């Protein structure tokens, strides 16, 4: 038997069913007696509801029920919640407005939910929805985060000046002192453009009430079904947890947008009891654009203080973060603890002070999106570092090296304690892969062809796994961020692993099985990874924040327990001392003898229970672990982007993209490369193509379809040059870090540093579309003439 080992590029077990069309997604699930729902949504960005008349809709053909915010209120259901309390610098708690699942008196963004229409067919529900008469009193909207605090429009009465919190991090006096003695101060204004997630599978749900058990089942496109159940039970009050089963089957991409508990799934679950029929809803793509939680949307001013020797002394950052019309589930944490804590980058910076104002606007809620706060932090630090090198006329590599952290552990002024890393190693490898030395010649050759070449770096660090539960609790998190694993060995030696992590593209069914098979010395096909159903897995925190390393550590620790118990059983069967039993290559051996038992033989003995004293050892072979990480993991690396710009059209072509990442020990290099590739695609999408835009006067989403929202396509992207360096993570037994978000975190800064290098401009915001690039060239040339 060739044991699949950790570190092998094993093909993904799950791909057979995906590629052959046998995936089972939420919309594939059809329940007996199922009805179909359509949501009446606000066409206005901001309006008072003067009346919602559902009588004609209720009388329409096929309609089973029409329910509104008044019905929700009558049943005393709670609103949607934000689960992370942020405290402002003046000590006051964040100021959150109510977030009813169906609007009661006010609608606050285009797409806000007003009523659910439930009918025998989807077409009937949609037809009847047009008969719901809503009387609006339109109010002026505010959409620009930079103007939200001074605008006359008040999105929520609870948040004066539309300000949810004014948060700070770092050491202000030290930072002021650093700036006071600085030889040079570099300043930069940046925006981090709003992105719309666009998972391939739109959000969907089926709510079902079973009168026989008085229990509910919700099938839903979720990255964390247990958290959804907890929130819907404890805060919204649909049913107690033991009467609510949440199933997240195959999920076709999330990128964060399916972490959150949305109005639609709450309402469909609740409504299934009202109409005594299962209720299904699947978003149309237009609804995804309008109502999936968006990402990013920051406006930032940053300043970097340097001494005469180009050593960084301090960093000052002021950011306004747009959270949209309501606070989504984890929205408050994204521009604070997932952002401010990463502002030290790879640099030895003793003084950092950052302030973040979070604001309400009449736009879709903004929450975590691939990288969540860390791309925004990396964008700030890596853009200003590159700009500083240019102003100091230093090579950006030399300038970075002068300031790298090299001693570990390293305590930053912004909470994080970097445990391990070698930033020079990934930089060196990347410089070689990118042929940095050859760049001046390539730039000259491009110039001879009338093209503008530029090169940009991003030496990034990020933090994954989210984090010791007590630590996040002290920072305001409403939940812990541990993960669970239960390993059940069957009597014939098969292994079922129940994990609270959820797989929606990450390939857990393969990588988790690799860890188990490699560890137990059994074939991959003997291992089944089970996730995504609150009836199967006791509890789990789900997948986001590149945190599967936490889940894998839980699995690894459960395997420790399995091995320990199996050794005891093997000792009895082999009539040896437990201390003499060694476990290798799937066999339990008595050291120094030829007496041995295969793993499956020990499993059978565990369940037969004939040959060991059950007063000392319980029959069976099943162990579980709730693993709480002791630190974040800190992936880091270097991305180098080389672009060529056609000055005639403003088209930016990425001629070369290099990424060398340190993810610690890698379980499956092929899957990790895939994660990096996808992440970079999204990062390049943000830098060059994607932009969620609202009309500033009407509050309408201008980029509400693929006619106007530019998704990255294969021909927008180069073939990447990828490499890995390894410093094992000291805080988990497998030495691994997270890899899911690094590409999206690191790459936008590299691309924009390359674009600004090519253009010779300082301030230039994403996305670098042809029209905006051409306008910048045009401005520069007009100024020169």
């Amino acid at each position: 038997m060739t044991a699949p080992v950790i570190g092998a590029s094993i093909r993904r077990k799950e791909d057979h069913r995906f590629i052959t069309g046998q995936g089972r997604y939420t919309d594939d699930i059809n329940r007996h007696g199922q009805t179909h729902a359509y949501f009446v949504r606000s066409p206005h960005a901001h309006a008072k509801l003067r009346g919602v008349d559902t009588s004609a809709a209720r009388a329409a053909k096929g309609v089973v029920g029409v329910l509104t915010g008044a019905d929700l209120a009558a049943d005393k259901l709670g609103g949607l919640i934000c689960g992370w309390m942020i405290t402002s610098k003046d000590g006051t708690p964040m100021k959150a407005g109510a977030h009813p699942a169906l609007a009661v008196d006010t609608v606050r963004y285009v797409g806000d939910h007003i009523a659910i229409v439930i009918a025998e067919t989807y077409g009937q529900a949609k037809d009847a929805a047009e008969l719901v008469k809503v009387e609006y009193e339109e109010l002026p909207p505010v959409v620009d985060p930079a103007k939200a605090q001074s605008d006359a429009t008040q999105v929520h009465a609870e948040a004066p000046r539309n300000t949810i919190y004014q948060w700070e991090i770092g050491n202000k006096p030290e930072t002021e002192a650093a700036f006071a003695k600085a030889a040079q101060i570099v300043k930069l204004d940046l925006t981090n453009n709003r992105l719309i997630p666009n998972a391939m599978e739109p959000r969907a749900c089926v709510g079902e009430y079973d009168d026989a058990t008085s229990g509910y089942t919700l099938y839903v496109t979720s990255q964390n079904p247990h958290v959804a159940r907890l929130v819907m039970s404890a805060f919204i009050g649909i049913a107690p947890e033991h009467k609510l089963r949440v199933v997240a089957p195959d999920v076709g991409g999330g990128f964060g947008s399916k972490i959150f508990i949305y109005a639609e799934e709450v309402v469909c679950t609740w409504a299934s009891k009202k109409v005594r029929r299962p209720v299904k809803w699947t978003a149309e793509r237009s609804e995804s654009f309008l109502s999936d939680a968006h990402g990013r949307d920051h406006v930032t001013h940053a300043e970097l203080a340097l001494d005469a020797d180009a050593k960084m002394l301090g960093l000052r950052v002021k950011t306004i973060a747009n959270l949209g019309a309501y606070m989504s589930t984890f929205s408050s944490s994204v521009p604070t603890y997932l952002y401010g804590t990463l502002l030290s980058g790879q640099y030895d910076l003793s003084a950092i002070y950052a302030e973040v104002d979070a604001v309400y606007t009449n736009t879709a809620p903004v929450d975590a999106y691939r990288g969540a706060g860390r791309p925004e932090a990396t964008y700030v630090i890596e853009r200003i570092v590159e700009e500083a090198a240019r102003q100091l006329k230093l090579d950006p590599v030399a300038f970075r090296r002068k300031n790298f952290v090299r001693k570990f552990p390293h305590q930053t002024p912004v909470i994080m304690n970097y445990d391990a890393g070698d930033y020079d190693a990934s930089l060196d490898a990347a410089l070689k892969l990118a042929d940095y030395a050859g760049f001046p010649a390539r730039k000259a050759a491009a110039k001879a062809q009338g093209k503008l070449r530029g090169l940009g770096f991003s030496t990034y660090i990020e933090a994954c796994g989210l984090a010791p539960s007590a630590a996040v609790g002290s920072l305001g998190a409403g939940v812990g961020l541990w993960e669970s694993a239960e390993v059940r060995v069957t009597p014939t030696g098969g292994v079922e692993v129940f994990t609270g992590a959820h797989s929606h593209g990450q390939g857990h069914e393969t990588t988790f099985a690799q860890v188990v098979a490699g560890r137990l010395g059994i074939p991959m096909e003997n291992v089944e990874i089970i996730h995504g159903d609150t009836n199967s897995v006791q509890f789990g925190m789900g997948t986001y924040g590149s945190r599967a390393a936490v889940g894998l550590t839980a699995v690894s620790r459960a395997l420790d327990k399995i091995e320990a118990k199996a050794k005891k059983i093997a000792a009895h069967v082999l009539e040896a001392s437990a201390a003499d039993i060694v476990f290798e290559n799937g066999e339990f051996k008595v050291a120094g003898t030829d007496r041995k038992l295969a793993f499956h033989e020990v499993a059978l003995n565990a369940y037969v229970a004939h040959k060991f004293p059950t007063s000392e050892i319980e029959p069976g072979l099943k162990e579980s672990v709730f693993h709480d990480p002791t630190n974040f993991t800190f992936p880091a690396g270097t991305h180098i982007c080389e672009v060529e710009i056609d000055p005639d059209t403003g088209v930016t072509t990425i001629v070369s993209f290099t990424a060398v990442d340190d993810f610690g020990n890698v379980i499956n290099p092929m899957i990790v490369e895939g994660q990096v590739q996808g992440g970079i695609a999204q990062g390049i999408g943000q830098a060059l193509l994607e932009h969620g835009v609202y009309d500033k006067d009407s509050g309408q989403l201008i980029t509400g379809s693929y006619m106007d929202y530019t998704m990255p396509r294969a021909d927008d992207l180069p073939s990447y040059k990828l490499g890995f360096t390894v410093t094992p993570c000291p805080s988990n037994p497998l030495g691994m870090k997270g890899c899911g978000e690094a590409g999206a975190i690191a790459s936008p800064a590299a691309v924009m540093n390359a674009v600004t290098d090519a253009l010779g401009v300082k301030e230039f915001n994403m996305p670098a579309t042809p029209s905006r690039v051409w306008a910048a060239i045009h401005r520069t040339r007009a100024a020169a003439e």
Partner: protein
Amino acid sequence: MYQFQYFRPKSLDEARKLYENNGDAKFLAGGQTLIPTLKQRLAQPTALIDLGGIAMSGIKVAGGVVTIGAGTKHFDVATSADVKGTIPALAHLAGHIGDPAVRHMGTLGGSIANNDPAADYPAAALGLGATIKTTSRSINADDFFTGMFETALEEGEIVTEVSFPVPEKAAYMKFPNPASRYAMVGVFVAKTKTGVRVAVTGAASSVFRESAMEAALAKSFTPDAVAGIKVSPANMNGDLHGTAEYRAHLVTVMAKRAVAAAIA
């Protein structure tokens, strides 16, 4: 989409009668604009009259003219040896409309009858001085495209075929909208027996001829002849993807590149 009656006539005569007898009927060709419009509930015709059952497709070359049936799919034009051998610019244009799915469904007649301001075929029809044959008459391309989504077609009139005179040289250069990949600016240049024609799509409310460029190219059919011609942004479209100034600038750039391709 809303409910409608669906008809698939076998003849143009039958199609005309169905149109006359149904209050708010629409003709359906390849459906690449109409079907998404219906799905979005942005149109509510009482009946769809599918022209796909009428024999109107095919490509003929005779007497220096390429005649293409209105029902001919973009893919068939793009891959036709006859078109490639006579007007390669037209095959190239057809091969860059939408994506493969669109090219296997969309038709020449549907495209020009719809006259989307960012569609490609109107540039070829106008740039080559094509003649559009309908159920009742023949219309010069110069008279056919009358405004945004507007043509000279009368109620119930159906395009049956389009005749493209074979030019001496021609090329089409498109700058696609980054999101939709429709033409943000597309320029079709042709040196024909009757003179040079330059047709621009995507930039304004409807396809138009750029007469200053035509005059310059008539004197010298070279990229340099148009390189210095500045197009006024006054009537250009402006939106998220490009200002009117940018589109006006792109007309010159694309014209220059189209001429370069035509003489290459």
